[in-house]
């Protein structure tokens, strides 16, 4: 059983290091997610893990706990319509806007295992061949080291490629490796993957034309959401767009953004 004191310790550690809020009632989640780590450390229970955390000076174990507590659910072309909007409206508009400098910067701010940014890369390759001669700076970040490693490998199980990925893109952009499917080098090379905590300093993230920050603000409290949206506001290039997850919004958090609706998709841009 997870004692209230240990639960409290884990919650505080995770909050401090990732801004992820674990509310009372999430004890089961902590137990479920930390079980593999407890076992890997040869410990009996979370109590043992907390004891080890208190004395671990390297910070590695802390990082692993935070990693384990992240929710990494994602899929190729998740929700479908934001990608339609990107293809039909946003990218054509950005291409017009940046036609003199011929450079575009895209940032995927909670990449998880990479399906989202690779969906964007495939969409660019399929529908915007002209961008091949542009200077493209595509950055994908996540707090989880394990996830960033998975992104870099670009290797997906059959279950993962079965979800949301058009078959025509599967056969074109992936190759078989044993039982898995790996995204081809040409696409992997398009993206610069980096470990980065949205709640701390943002390093190496370029001012961006399109920012995908989907399904990550939900884990933070309002103060942290405001802080992050404030930084996004400063990072968004003139005319640029922000995509949030379906249950996320800037409303009542940062009034400098305006909501723009394209068909079924809500996007955000800086008010002029």
């Amino acid at each position: 059983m997870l004692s209230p004191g240990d639960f409290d310790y884990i919650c505080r550690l995770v909050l401090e290091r990732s801004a992820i809020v674990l509310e009372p009632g999430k004890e089961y989640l902590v137990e479920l997610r930390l079980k593999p780590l407890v076992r890997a450390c040869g410990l009996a229970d979370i109590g043992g893990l907390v004891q080890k955390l208190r004395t671990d000076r390297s910070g590695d174990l802390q990082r692993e706990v935070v990693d384990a507590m992240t929710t990494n659910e994602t899929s190729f072309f998740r929700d479908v319509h934001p990608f339609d909007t990107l293809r039909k409206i946003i990218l054509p508009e950005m291409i017009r806007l940046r036609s003199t400098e011929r450079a575009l910067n895209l940032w995927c701010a909670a990449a998880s295992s990479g399906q989202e940014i690779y969906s964007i890369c495939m969409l660019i390759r399929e529908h915007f061949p002209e961008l091949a001669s542009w200077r493209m700076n595509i950055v994908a970040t996540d707090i989880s080291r394990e996830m960033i490693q998975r992104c870099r490998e670009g290797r997906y199980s059959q279950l993962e490629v079965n979800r949301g990925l058009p078959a025509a893109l599967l056969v074109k952009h992936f190759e078989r490796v044993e039982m898995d499917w790996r995204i081809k080098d040409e696409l992997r090379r398009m993206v610069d993957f980096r470990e980065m905590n949205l709640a701390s300093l943002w390093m190496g993230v370029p001012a961006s034309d399109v920012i995908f920050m989907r399904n990550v603000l939900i884990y933070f409290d309002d103060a942290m959401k405001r802080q992050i949206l404030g930084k996004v506001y400063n990072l968004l290039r003139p005319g640029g767009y922000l995509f949030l997850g379906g249950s996320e919004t800037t409303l009542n958090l940062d009034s400098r953004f305006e909501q723009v609706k394209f068909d079924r998709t809500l996007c955000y841009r800086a008010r002029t």
Partner: protein
Amino acid sequence: MGKRALVIDDSRAMRRVIANILVERGFEVLEAEHGQAALDVLAQAGPVDVALVDWNMPVMNGYEFIKSVRASPQYTRLTLMMVTTETEISQVVRALAAGANEYLMKPFTADDLVQKLELLGLV
């Protein structure tokens, strides 16, 4: 108006699984246990929006079914999705070249199937 789907699989249990997911999404569902039976259904039942096609079946397999559908001018608006345990790239390529619009590998979840239908603009 509700859309119509034709589920083609020699396993009755699999037809039930797929049909249940579709019915929940408002589809009217027809069934056939192999490709030939499916061609008969298509000839008699009036317009169908999408066929979900297993590959390995007796009498006429799914690949042959897709080829015959694409060879007949009256079914040009029928969307075809392969739903199969065949998972080699070469098989996926063959099915698409024959005229399949999508390809779903077994096993799959209800969400996986629905997302494919979403890609096809059917839900």
